[in-house]
């Protein structure tokens, strides 16, 4: 029998430190597969965020730097400008990218820095124990919205893809999910396309991945997948938002 599915080479053997059922692991695999498929792992520099994925350097078998919270796009800019022939990607959570790092992602996208951003939207701050993220849904209970997110004082969830797509600069922007195999196949395609965009020197690319945080959602992995499908996808429609070069 032939092996038809195995761990991609661009992942190390270190077991993930993520909670059971957390999609971070799937996203890691898809990124690693993209690096494998495109044969770019040895030329890739990853920028890990401050968030649950801060330990990503243990898992990806490529050069990695951990950026300050929210500043991954700036750090990636520095890397890419010095090493334009390398492939540079950031891997950022929603607190990291859409809250503290808002200015950095908007301006990196606007400058159309030739980097690829993997944006993990799990509607919560995972690492710090479940506080409200900019992407937390209306009414969602978190540590810092203990009575549910109230749009009157906390605003509505931010849709990053839609926001960034208004910028008049080259870019590839898509939103994907991972709750069923069909979605995963699409997610894989989008991530690969995003890296290809960079390889082709076309500019900035970003894939938003709707992700789960069973631990902080207080749900089982299965329930988390359901919640994602029933609550998140309607507010965060999947699809490609921009492809301009």
């Amino acid at each position, binding site marked *: 029998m032939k092996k038809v599915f195995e761990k991609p080479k661009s992942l190390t053997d270190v077991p993930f430190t993520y909670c059971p059922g957390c999609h971070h692991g799937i996203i890691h695999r898809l990124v690693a597969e993209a690096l494998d498929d495109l044969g770019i792992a040895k030329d890739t520099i990853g920028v890990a965020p401050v968030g649950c994925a801060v330990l990503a350097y243990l898992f990806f078998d*490529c050069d990695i*730097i951990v*950026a300050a919270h929210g500043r991954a796009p700036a750090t990636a*800019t*520095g890397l890419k400008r*010095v*090493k334009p022939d390398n492939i540079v990607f950031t891997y950022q959570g929603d607190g990291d990218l859409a809250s503290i790092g808002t200015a950095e992602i908007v301006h990196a996208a606007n400058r159309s820095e030739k980097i690829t951003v993997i944006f993990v939207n799990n509607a919560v701050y995972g690492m710090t124990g479940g506080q409200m993220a900019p992407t937390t849904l209306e009414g969602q209970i978190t540590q810092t919205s203990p009575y549910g997110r109230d749009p009157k004082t906390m605003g509505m969830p931010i849709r990053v893809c839609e926001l960034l797509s208004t910028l008049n600069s080259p870019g590839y922007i898509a939103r994907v999910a991972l709750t069923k195999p069909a979605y995963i196949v699409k997610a894989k395609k989008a991530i690969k396309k995003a890296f290809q965009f960079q390889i082709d020197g076309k500019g900035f690319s970003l894939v938003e991945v709707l992700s789960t945080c069973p631990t902080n959602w207080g749900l089982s992995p299965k329930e988390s997948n359901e919640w994602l499908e029933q609550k998140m996808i309607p507010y965060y429609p999947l699809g490609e938002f921009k492809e301009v070069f």
Partner: protein
Amino acid sequence: MVDRLLMRGNEAIGEAAIHAGCRYYFGYPITPQSELIAYMAKRLLKIEGATFVQSESELAAINMVYGAAAAGGRVMTSSSSPGISLKQEGISYITCAELPCVIVNIMRGGPGLGSIQPAQGDYFQATKGGGHGDYHLIVLAPSTVQELADLTIKAFDLSDKYRNPAMILGDGLLGQMMEPVEFKEYDINSIPSKESWALGSSHGREARTIVPFNLDAGEMEKINNRLKQKYIDMQKEAECEVVNMDNPDIIVVAYGIVARIVKTAIQKAKKDGINIGLLRPITLYPFPSAVIRENVHKAKKILVTEMSMGQMVEDVELAACGKAEISFYGRTGGVVISPVEILEEVKKLLK
């Protein structure tokens, strides 16, 4: 022969950086250092492969520097007081990651938005660590436009040598003034290779990481200890100009532009028969404590003078170990001390 050029301090820093092989600059405008960012734009945008980015903020700039340094680039950023405050987290990261880079602070009056006039109120921030955690920058304090250039080059070299960020601590007056400056031959090939640690392509080697943290306290302490050892090793770089120290009536300690003003006071004092000695720390970190210690006993009185409420004076006191009577004279808010004021202060102390 090398040409003498009449240049603004800010521009001399920029030219020196380029001279020293700096090809990456990330910064954000702010008075009184905006001529530097403009100079870098003008020059770097014309050099193939070089990068000039006006970043969205000082915060972004320092984090771009972090990335560029991690990739092995000789990289610089610059700002003035409020902008430097915004860089503190990033500076702390770069220090922890042990990456080389040069940060220029052309100080202005503070706190807050302050004034845009020259000041020296950021000494503590620069030398003690304005960011969190135990770390130090290499801090160089030029006092002429020529020294702005020379110390900028030195900052790059020391930064590479110790893999530690280095800061040029100037002020608005130095940045804005013009003086003749020469750029001596600099051998770009002498820049240490960063191949052994910089990020990039990993063909033929293991993948590398630059991670300025460790969740295990014991492991994190190892990082701290490595830094500490580095700071100890660095002490040998301490530098201090010693002026007019045979038999002074009083010793003045001052750095940067203020030290030059003291020099005029020295000349004026001679006419009044007063002999003023001057100790001018050139490196503020490592602080030339040994030179201070060796010299303070040569006069009964020591006057530290700064364009601040008194910051370096603490390091002088620490160096003097209670062995001298130390006074302080300072002006703040952007007011530049005049030679006459210093002379008056000296006379008051000698009474």
